[in-house]
């Protein structure tokens, strides 16, 4: 009697995982990564090939960072001219930087201005921007640079 029951059971249900829901789980993860992957937030209109350095520090708090791009224009009439871009707009008047940065500083008092400057830019423009930042009292800056490769 007992052995009869046992045998019946083993023949009825095949052991094994149900893999039917596995694709659903994986697709859910996949969709999460596809959605959360951000390719580029803003269009950068100036070329910024960053310099390389050794004594780097990481900025952990991304929300404190405000980026200032300085470099030659990628396209347009004045292609190749050095220009300044903050967020997604080019800054024509350099005097306007202090106002822009001052407003940003009001929103985020611990603002870090990340200077993304093209390696071939001249110091004159960098210093002008720094003077503007001093006027705006945005004193925490960061010279964005990449890790030095061993080949160099």
């Amino acid at each position: 009697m007992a052995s009869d029951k046992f045998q019946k059971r083993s023949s009825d249900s095949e052991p094994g995982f149900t893999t039917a829901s596995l694709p659903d789980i994986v697709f859910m993860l996949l969709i999460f990564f596809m959605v959360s992957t951000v390719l580029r937030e803003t269009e950068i209109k100036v070329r910024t090939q960053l310099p390389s350095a050794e004594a780097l520090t990481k900025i952990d708090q991304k929300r404190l960072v405000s980026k200032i791009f300085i470099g030659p224009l990628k396209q347009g009439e004045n292609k190749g001219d050095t220009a300044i871009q903050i967020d997604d707009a080019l800054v024509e008047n350099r005097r306007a930087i202090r106002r822009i940065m001052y407003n940003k500083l009001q929103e985020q008092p611990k603002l870090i201005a990340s200077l993304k400057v093209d390696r071939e830019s001249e110091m004159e423009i960098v210093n002008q921007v720094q003077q503007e930042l001093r006027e705006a009292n945005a004193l925490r800056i960061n010279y964005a640079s990449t890790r030095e490769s061993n080949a160099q």
Partner: protein
Amino acid sequence: MAGLLDKRREGRDDVEIPTASMADIAFLLLIFFLVTTTINVDTGIGMTLPPKLQQDQQPPPVKDRNMFKILVNSQGDVLIEEEPSSLTQVRDRVKEHVLNFGEDADLSENPSSAVISIKTDAQTPYRIYIRTLDEVWMAYREIWDSIARSGQTPGGEQILNQTFPNYQAYRSSLDPEDDNLIRDNFGANISIAEPDTGE
């Protein structure tokens, strides 16, 4: 003949799309996205600009012996303390200056009053400026590394309760609200002078 057709039909009814490989396909895509997603961390050289001076306010005086001047022109030529030099020498010269402890009359009195001044021409490429600044920071990094390894400052003061293989390891052991004891006790004074405009 008809019998054969019937048999085929019967077989077709049982056919299903095999879903077993679906998971593999999804995993492959998932791994692809996992690998290609780069959460890029911003890295760079952090600096603090001096606050804007009020009208007719003079910059704080610095003794000449404490000031270590580095001049870089547009060709990348370096002048250290008025002597022609090269970028590769900057690091050792800065360390020598900072860790002088009043020994040499031309170098700094003590590390906290030592000031490194970098001055560039208006036409100096940014790349060369960053290289110079990097060398100066690396000089301090090497000093901080030795503090992290020994737990005491070059002046012989015990500031850390435990030792670390290098400064980076010490920094990563800190919580965001912790004080960085190495930098508090042995700060870097780097001054960026305004360039000559040629006017």
